[in-house]
């Protein structure tokens, strides 16, 4: 069983009359966890509660076994945070800013740590420039560096790869993975870029309207939400597709890269029908298997269904 780093139980938070969290219960295990949901679904509020910045009206939030509101100082000693906003002191250079932060964390080998971090997040060329001259992507890099500076047990990253070019995104994702492998740092990554999560996450939390829609190990979720999706490879996909559209058990059918994908409601009947159709049409059935869906598929099934 994975160790739980943080958890919330029945969290309720309202801003005036507007509900932000509605009995939200979730666990963040050791590892790299993705935190997804629509805009306004309560992700930032949940992060605020976990950081001890926002006090929940009801329910509990704990991190490292400590209460997030009452023991926020103790928690922050083991925590690194990258907020969505780029609120960094514009007049400071990257190096000077990181030096300030390192001193707050009580780091001893400051120069060495910062040089390594700056190199890791690919900011060597801009380390002495004022932060106010940085591009959106560079802001994200300095944000990641300041979140990782204290070698935290858990790093909470809010939109870490937004506004970054593809190569920069790969660098950041690799750094996250490396920190997890080398130092055992756990991550909670809130993002809308699901393809990024797919590359590094082993746990996913999906929330909507302040409630947890589903959560669990990525492999379990992909199996759960893609159980009824099949991939078919045949010699003539177009001809096969026309024939498939007449079958009642198919809810949805689409073609990607000459491969046919079917979402079905009666898998048993479907599995017996496919070889029959292929032989009737005298087409070669090159492949026929159940697929594991992408995070986008899971997301659209959990959050999208409610629209």
């Amino acid at each position, binding site marked *: 069983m994975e160790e739980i780093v943080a958890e919330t139980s029945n969290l309720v938070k309202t801003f005036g009359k507007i509900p932000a969290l509605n009995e939200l219960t979730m666990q963040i295990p050791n590892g790299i966890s993705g935190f997804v949901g629509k805009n306004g679904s309560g992700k930032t509020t949940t992060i605020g509660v976990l950081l001890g*910045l926002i006090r929940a009206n009801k329910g509990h939030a704990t991190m490292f076994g400590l209460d997030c509101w009452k023991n926020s100082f103790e928690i922050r000693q083991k925590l690194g945070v990258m907020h969505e906003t780029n609120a*960094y*002191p514009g007049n400071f250079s990257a190096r000077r800013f990181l030096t300030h932060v390192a001193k707050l964390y009580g780091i001893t080998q400051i120069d060495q740590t910062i040089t390594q971090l700056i190199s890791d997040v690919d900011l060597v060329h801009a380390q002495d420039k004022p932060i106010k001259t940085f591009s959106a992507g560079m802001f994200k890099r300095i944000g990641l560096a300041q979140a990782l500076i204290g070698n935290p047990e858990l790093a909470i990253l809010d939109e870490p790869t937004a506004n970054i070019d593809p190569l920069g995104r790969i660098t950041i994702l690799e750094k996250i993975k490396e920190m997890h492998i080398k130092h055992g740092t756990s991550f909670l990554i809130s993002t809308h870029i699901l393809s990024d999560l797919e590359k590094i996450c082993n746990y996913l939390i999906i929330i909507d309207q302040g409630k947890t829609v589903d959560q669990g190990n990525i492999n379990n979720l992909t199996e759960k939400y893609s159980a009824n999706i099949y991939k078919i490879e045949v010699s003539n996909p177009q001809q096969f597709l026309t024939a498939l559209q007449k079958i009642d058990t198919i809810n949805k059918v689409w073609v990607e890269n000459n491969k046919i994908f079917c979402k079905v409601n009666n898998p048993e009947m479907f599995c017996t029908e496919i070889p029959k159709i292929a032989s009737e049409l005298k087409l070669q059935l090159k492949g026929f298997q159940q697929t594991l869906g992408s995070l986008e598929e899971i997301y659209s099934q959990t959050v999208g269904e409610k629209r």
Partner: protein
Amino acid sequence: MNTPKIFFRLILWEIENSLSLPVLSLIIASAILAVLVQSTSITGFTHNYGDLYSGANTIFLVLTFVTCILFSHSFAGSFGRGDLKRILSYPVKRWQIFISKMLALNLAIFSIYASAYAMNLYINAISLLEPMFYVSLFTIFLQLLFVCAVSVGISMLAKSELISIVVSFMLIFGLDNAINFNNIFTSMGRFRNIFGYFEQLIHPGFHYASHITVTFEQFTGSIVFPLLTAVIVIGIVFVYFTRKMEVD
């Protein structure tokens, strides 16, 4: 890491952040200008401690405006920009952030204004040992504390930099103009009472500040009112900041 080191770090951070070069030069320029306006507004060329009193309302006006801007920027502005959210994510206690902001800004503003005010000594050939100079500095400090308390209080209510600047300045400026000049609730009224009371003690027979006799009650009221306001407002804000405040 021990508390004094973190404190020192936060104070430096606040000074560097709030008083970066363009802002700092503007504050220094405003302080010097205010003192020069004060000095040149003197018509009698008395060249004695009385010059410290004449035209001091310009300094109070500029000091009030600058203090409102800096404290609103540091407190209310940090909500809007997200600074506070970021700093509160580091291993720093809330009271350390609050006290360091208060100390950094009060020290910086007072040092700049006190230095600029000291130009009066040179311009008007007043001795550095003149007690009324230190009485004037004390009154400037009281005004700074009073304005700082009002700005910080309104910053916490409004959580918007612009609203906080406008409301706190208009409140103090309005109070100064709506009430009788000699009243302890006005900036110049308090200055006149404190300056005049000490003038009666140190330079009996002269009446540069007080054309009427300042009573002990007026004198103590002029000290107690801004001090008490500052202690109460800053105390309430401190408790709110450290125990109740939510940053969303």
